């Protein structure tokens, strides 16, 4: 048993001369639900595709369940479930035929669990995959990925196109999977509420770099958003390090800063602010602050 089902070492990927991933280092512990976040084009899907051996890396190494992902054996591949962004199922197949094919090729198939999922999703077996709605395709893809009882489940924006009910069903299923001992999930999503609800650990990719890699609690305690009122005009510079974002309007300053500490507090107090209140931040707020183009300061301590 590997303590880290996913290990990424110094991963670099260039595509048509453009750097997509720039020295990514990442370890996903066993039993963890890891939420990979990032804006469109930040490299989330590329990392996932490299992990699955669908895309060769330019440099670096990715290890999945103890094996180099470009040389994954059939047995190891069979322990990894995958739901692709856009759900790349064979469009010309009927649902029944696609299920038959996957069942015939899978090393392990949990018929009972799959049947339960199909009952929940109520998918039409006699329709072609291309005739299904996006939501139905997502459900089918998810059911197929879950049916192999994966030790590691990789989901690339799996709830894309699902309605609220279906999304909730999906999240419940993900939790159900994780409750089976030792299961690990890596998933990327744009719906940060979903990530916040189920993820233990968060990674944030910005322009091909992993700028955040820590637990959700660490992330929330690490980044503080403060509303500071000064007696007069807010100062131009607070001489603080690791400022993620700073907005100033008259006497008021809204400051987002990483790794808030007593030292930083002491520096702030030298400006004699009238009041300093903490603004509660959701994961979405933190994500927006971290990925904002203006936020030049990226807290390196949050990685690793």
């Amino acid at each position, binding site marked *: 048993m590997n303590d880290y089902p996913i290990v990424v070492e110094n991963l670099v990927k260039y595509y048509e001369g453009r750097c997509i991933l720039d020295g990514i280092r990442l370890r996903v512990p066993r039993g963890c639900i890891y939420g990979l976040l990032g804006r469109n084009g930040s490299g989330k899907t590329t990392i996932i*595709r490299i992990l*699955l*051996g*669908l*895309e*060769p890396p330019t440099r670096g190494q990715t290890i999945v369940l103890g094996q180099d992902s470009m040389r*994954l*054996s*059939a*047995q190891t*591949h*069979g322990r*990894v479930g*995958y739901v*692709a962004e856009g759900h*790349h*199922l*064979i*469009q*010309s197949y009927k649902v029944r035929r696609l299920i038959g*094919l*996957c069942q*015939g*090729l*899978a*090393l392990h198939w949990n018929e009972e669990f799959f049947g339960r999922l199909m009952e929940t999703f109520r998918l039409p077996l006699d329709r072609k995959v291309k005739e299904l709605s996006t939501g139905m395709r997502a459900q089918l893809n998810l059911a197929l990925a879950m049916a*192999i009882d994966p030790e590691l489940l990789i989901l690339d924006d799996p709830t894309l196109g699902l309605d609220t009910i279906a999304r909730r069903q999906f999240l419940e299923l993900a939790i159900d999977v994780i409750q089976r001992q030792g299961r690990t999930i890596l998933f990327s999503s744009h719906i940060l509420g979903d990530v916040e609800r189920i993820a233990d650990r968060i990674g944030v990719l910005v322009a091909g770099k992993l700028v955040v890699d820590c637990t959700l609690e660490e992330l929330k305690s690490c980044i503080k958003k403060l509303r500071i009122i000064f007696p007069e005009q807010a100062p131009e510079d607070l001489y603080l390090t690791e400022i993620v974002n700073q907005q100033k309007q008259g006497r008021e300053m809204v400051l987002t800063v990483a790794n808030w500490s007593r030292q930083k507090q002491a520096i702030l107090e030298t400006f004699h602010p009238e009041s300093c209140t903490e603004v509660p931040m959701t994961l979405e707020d933190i994500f927006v602050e971290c990925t904002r183009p203006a936020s030049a300061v990226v807290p390196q301590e949050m990685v690793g």
Partner: protein
Amino acid sequence: MLTLIAREIRDNIVSVALPCLVSALGITVAVIFAFSRGNGGTFPVTIMFTPILLLAFCSLGASQAYGDRANRISSLLATLGITRNRIFAARVLAGLLIVLICLVPLAVTTIFLLWRFAPPLEFYGRMVAEISLTVLLAAVACYFAGLLVGWTTSKAWLLAGCVLLLLSLASLVVIKGFGPAAMALLALFLGATLWYTWHTFTSASL
């Protein structure tokens, strides 16, 4: 492996049926021709069907590779625990199976008709063997050429590639004639295309 081979055949059923139909037509015409005329002039008839068959084999390879690339079939199969080598092996085995299914009955029919109707000349045996082997190698080469150029998303490149490679193969056989020299060159060609296609498939993004 059998599931994968069956999938290859079923997914490309039109491209599989085409060479089989041409082969069946060739056999039928040759038999009718031989029995109605009562002589050994059937050989040119079966040879006449060969270029169409080669074209059909090329389209079979192209259809397999193009269909896979366009529908991202290998991408799905690879995530089901099937290695790229197995996917590739199943594809090639399915293609070779179709080539043999189409060519062997045609060759057997030709040999039978020659034995039945042609004058018992000694050189026929060697000639038929050389022609059959050259045609078999050319058929496999055409199939591999189809696989090679089919791994694209551009229909224009697909068409241009097929035409160019088929013309090169045809001129090779025309210049060298049926025999060991053409066979050696065809064997080299198909070895190189097989290696290149395998390398492209196993290292490409799926």
